[in-house]
């Protein structure tokens, strides 16, 4: 495959565009799911939408993508609100409710799907693709539907921006201010359900939740600002879609859904490691730097205590006497010398004027800290 294929090959262009738009809307709405600790809700919703697709086919008997999506939407919503009511009404906890609805709805869906396969007009149904998704079946119309939904959810997001933001970070306060939190909750949950249903055809039931989570989890590492996070998540999502499609198109036998998920996972991994403020790499570096500085300071204060006993602060002492002190290494001494805090001559060290003052001020600071 050549790079130019993206601009000349109609099918590929449609698929790429479709997965990009899908990634963007998932990133946008996924940010809310991640921040509201509803990460696994997406998993449950996507599985719960399966029986809806099957029932839509059984009732109408026709193969119509949009009809399937409506069926998926209804059964996804039923699943979501059932989860909420299980948590609210019974002693079962959130995770149990999620797992229950996820697996029970999916089981029902599988029962219906295998039942449909035995029906006379079944081979036209092609319902299997909803399990793992088939990006190849995306047509221009689907992309338009996705774009339209993205537009609508963007507008709603902007309209209720202030309220949603407040709801995310302080639901109780939102309620006391008189906002209808129930309505806002239903609003954002419904949009998450819509986004998931849209992705079923492309990524499939099983992997859809990752599409929702991964871009948002990656974006979270780079910023503490909700707006920036949503924009970043959309960008990560869109790029996952584009790269995933490109990689899977470049080889045979590589389904698009899993590849997109892996690309998104790679974004998460990179963000986890390299994000400047939260990332593991810089966190470790900062940690080491702090530890080294602490060593230097410990050594310096120890030297100060020795030097203080003498009239001449720069009186040389043997390095040997530092040995029973753990903070001391050959490297620490070199570091201290580089900073002109001590002088090292052969086996002897001596504090400089600068080093003495530095250590003294540290002592004063420590003393006041203790009081």
């Amino acid at each position, binding site marked *: 495959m050549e790079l130019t294929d993206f601009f000349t090959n109609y099918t590929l262009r449609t698929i790429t565009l479709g997965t990009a738009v899908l990634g963007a809307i998932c990133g946008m709405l996924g940010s809310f799911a991640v921040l509201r600790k*509803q990460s696994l809700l997406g998993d449950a919703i996507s599985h719960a939408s399966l029986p809806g697709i099957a029932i839509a086919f059984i009732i109408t008997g026709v193969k119509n993508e949009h009809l399937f999506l409506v069926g998926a939407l209804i059964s996804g919503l039923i699943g979501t609100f059932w989860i909420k009511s299980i948590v609210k009404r019974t002693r079962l906890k959130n*995770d149990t409710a999620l*797992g*229950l609805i996820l697996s029970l709805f*999916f*089981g*029902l869906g*599988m029962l219906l799907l295998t039942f449909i396969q035995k029906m006379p007009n079944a081979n036209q149904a092609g319902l299997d693709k909803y399990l793992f998704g088939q990006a190849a079946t995306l047509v221009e119309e689907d992309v338009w539907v996705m774009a339209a939904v993205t537009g609508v959810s963007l507008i709603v997001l902007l309209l209720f921006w202030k309220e949603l933001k407040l709801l995310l970070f302080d639901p109780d306060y939102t309620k006391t201010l008189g906002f209808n939190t129930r309505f806002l909750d239903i609003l954002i949950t419904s949009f998450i359900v819509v986004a998931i249903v849209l992705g079923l055809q492309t990524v499939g039931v099983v992997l859809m939740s990752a599409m929702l989570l991964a871009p948002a989890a990656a974006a979270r590492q780079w910023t503490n600002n909700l707006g920036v996070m949503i924009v970043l998540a959309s960008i990560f999502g869109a790029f996952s879609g584009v790269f995933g499609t490109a990689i899977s198109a470049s080889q045979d036998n590589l389904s698009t859904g899993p590849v997109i998920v892996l690309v998104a996972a790679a974004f998460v991994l990179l963000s*986890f490691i390299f994000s400047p403020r939260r990332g593991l790499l810089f966190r470790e570096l900062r940690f080491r730097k702090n530890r080294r500085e602490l060593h230097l300071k410990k050594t310096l204060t120890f030297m100060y205590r020795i030097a203080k006993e003498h009239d001449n602060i720069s009186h040389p002492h043997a390095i040997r006497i530092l040995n029973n002190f753990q903070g001391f290494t050959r490297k620490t001494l070199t570091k201290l010398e580089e900073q002109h805090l001590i002088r090292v001559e052969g086996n002897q060290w001596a504090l400089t004027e600068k080093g003495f003052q530095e250590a003294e001020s540290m002592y004063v600071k420590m003393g006041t800290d203790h009081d």
Partner: protein
Amino acid sequence: MTNAQLEIQLIAALVAVACAIPGVFLVLRKMAMISDAISHSILVGIVVGFFITQDLNSPLLILLAAVTGVVTVILVEFIQKTGLVKEDTAIGLVFPALFSIGVILIAKHANDVHLDIDAVLLGELAFAPFDHLIVGDTDIGPKSLWVIGTILVINLTLLILFFKELKLSTFDKGLAATLGFSPLLLHYGLMTVSSVTIVGAFDAVGAVLVVALIIAPPATAYLLTDDLKKMLLLSCFFGIFAAISGYWVANALDASIAGSMTTMLGVVFLLVYLFAPKQGVFSVFYKERQQRIEVSLLVFLLHLQNHQEKEERHVNHLQEHINWEKVKAKTVLELATKNNLIHISENIVSLTEKGQEFTDEALKYITTNKETAIEELKDRFFLFRG
């Protein structure tokens, strides 16, 4: 019923019981979703193991897959510990990534692997009787029966051996730790057992439906009992019931056995969810309504006690005064009369002797606020409940 049918039902029932045992503890420890993560990510282990052994029932493959399950748990916990994302996000990130790798591996080697993706999601219970284990020259029954049977025996043995420890560490982690039961050991022990069980069941019922067998029976049982042993027994019962009834439903519809087993679990859960005596939706609704009315009654009685003047105790006035709707006022009045707490003459309500006594005691209860006395009080005074 043919021999094959019997074998399928037997395997299904064994799988259900084997899953229910770790499931009870996962549900009680609020780790139900970890089973979802394990059941998806072991796919990688299974695929890699299959490349090595070329046999879906090989012990090595089961071991490899189980190790993948434990690795998943460790990975999830590592991500949680970094604090970069919230807890459940860690689960949601790890297993789709691993599952994707598994799916891609299968797809890339589709030609030389007898695994296909439908089998991954659905299992191949219907074919289980055709794959018999032959030792020497004798046929000793279906392979998967032996696999799941072994796992079940291991689970049961471990359950009996460590019942006390598991129980304690599930309900009081701190106490278990101070008594010297390592929470870490028990945690990873449970995770290992779960992984092995999921791998064994995976072959029969597939990735997603394992989750149903692990979560649904304990969750259903939890709505019915507070006793751990009863919960275990009930879970096993629900599992076996779903396995056998599910098989016959699948037979009638000519559809997936695993799918219909899960659907039966769903039906059982729905019934219990609605009608369970204490935790069910209807009984909770009824109880809440009852309590609302009884609280109103108490308020009403206190009002009567506080007001000796006739105009304050007039039937119509009460409605306006306490600001109740007509229906509610009527229900409360009726309940009070039925219980012989008040009597009404010429539309003036007054407390009976019994009513006076009840109100006094209730007032004393409210001011000193002892724990459950009010229920006992109600039992003593009320013939009829709200």
